[in-house]
């Protein structure tokens, strides 16, 4: 690992993004619009908006980063730039960390905008600190980046890569407690939701809505999300091969 190469990679990824202002706008504006929409969907039931809004604040960065990373990494693989980079003195860790840094920076902006809007403008009732909300949102973004990187190894085209979003993320959205509380699910589904990382990403957000300070569950949630991300990142690194058939 080299700090210089990691930073150069992060700078390069951000430069690529900067040539694509529409993608940046979509990444930043869409979550805000959807949260505003949600606020008025639950107009008559503000308590529901508190938990659903917080859950979505956790899910958005995950989805965005998953999509962006899986497409970006797939492009690296298919354009030959990955092969070239790996024939150069670049560590796989440099590449992964560079991507994580660049998209992490975008995630900070996205999460800050969405959280700020939801708490300050849309009036989400928060018992805990908005900073903790931001922290979980970042962990979720990190998880999205890692998962996106991992699945891109199994996609041969951008069509396939996009289809991995519903395949990998929708089941987690259904089972994470956003729609039905996880405790009241059928036991098999509830067990399944216990092993899916997004459940913890969403639970962490809801913890902040209902509790002041850092709870034990909050710490567990954060550790599970970060741990899952690291695991996916390690599996993703294993799919970056210097030698290919």
């Amino acid at each position, binding site marked *: 690992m*080299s700090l*210089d*190469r990691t930073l*150069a*990679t992060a*700078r*390069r990824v951000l*430069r*690529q993004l900067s*040539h*694509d202002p529409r993608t940046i706008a979509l990444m930043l504006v869409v979550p805000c619009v959807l949260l505003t929409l949600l606020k008025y969907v639950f107009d008559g039931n503000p308590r529901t908006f508190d938990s659903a809004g917080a859950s979505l604040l956790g899910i958005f960065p995950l989805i965005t980063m998953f999509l962006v990373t899986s497409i970006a990494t797939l492009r690296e693989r298919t*354009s*030959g*730039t990955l*092969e*070239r*980079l*790996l*024939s*150069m*003195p*670049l560590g796989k860790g440099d590449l992964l960390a560079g991507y994580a840094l660049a998209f992490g920076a975008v995630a900070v902006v996205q999460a800050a905008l969405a959280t700020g809007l939801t708490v300050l403008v849309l009036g989400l009732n928060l018992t805990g600190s908005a900073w903790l909300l931001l922290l979980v949102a970042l962990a979720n973004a990190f998880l999205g980046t890692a998962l996106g990187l991992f699945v891109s190894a199994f996609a041969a085209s951008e069509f396939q890569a996009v289809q991995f979003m519903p395949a990998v993320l929708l089941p987690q959205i259904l089972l994470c407690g956003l729609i039905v509380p996880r405790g009241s699910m059928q036991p098999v589904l509830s067990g399944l939701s216990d092993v899916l990382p997004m459940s913890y990403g969403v639970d962490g957000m809801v913890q902040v809505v209902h509790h002041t300070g850092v709870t034990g569950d909050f710490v567990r949630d954060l550790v599970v999300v970060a741990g899952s991300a690291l695991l996916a990142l390690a599996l993703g690194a294993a799919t970056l*091969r*210097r*030698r*290919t*058939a």
Partner: protein
Amino acid sequence: MALELRPLTRDTGRAIIHHMMNYAGGAHPAPAVEAADLRVVRGGRTVLDDLSFTVPPGRITGLLGPSGCGKSTLMRAVTGSQARVTGTLTVLGHPAGHRALRPRVGYVTQAPSVYADLTARQNLAYYAAVLGLPRAERAGHVERTLHDVDLTSHADVLAGSLSGGQLGRVSLAVALLGTPELLVLDEPTVGLDPVLRRDLWQLFHRLVEEHGTTVLVSSHVMDEAERCHRLLLLREGRLLADDTPAALRERTGTATVEDAFLHLVDEAADRTDRTPHDGSPGAAPRPSTGSSRSAEPTRKSAS
């Protein structure tokens, strides 16, 4: 031997060593690439079979053959990108793909491996950082390589907006960064106009003369073969010849490398036809596959 009175940078040091290796003592310099019993299997098919050859240092070696003959696979094996390579393949004194080789070997794939959503200059700046060139020297390296491939005027255009030929030159410029000791170029002149092709070949020769760079360049355009110091002729994964262009022409009694190649193809076809079914001496030579469009008339003129 003329030693330049420049401060001894990595490049000049290498050029001096190159001069010494080539002209002092008469001893044979160590080959830049040495292959023995090289074999590559891809998708259950043997793409390269039983190749043994050497690439001399500080020379331009052309790798020629019809498309699909295994040129790219051989180049990927040399750069260490190819899986399932058996036999011995030594590059600059290390096994191919060794980590010590990564900064020393420049590689241009057939498809331009650059970021379409960055400008040419931004592409080069990133790859310069990846190569680990000293921060203070990067901008200079980037400008020089842009100049070398004649892209200074298009340096700030997004690579995605460049023409195919320009994009290929950005990809080539990346490989030139840091003046690698071995340059592996997979069909770098495809789709370029004659003027540009001539300029690039002049650039390759300049690299050899000024830096002692070893160039391994593939092409299926046979007229480019005349510009190489040595040639490896490849057909269906096997080596047909390993010689200088002049010696090839002389040995086959032909006027051009293209004719020499066709002559060798027919010769090889005759051999394989005779060996399995002996007793059929009159067997017609198998029609050559691959780049056979011009095979018929040329064979007549060559024989």
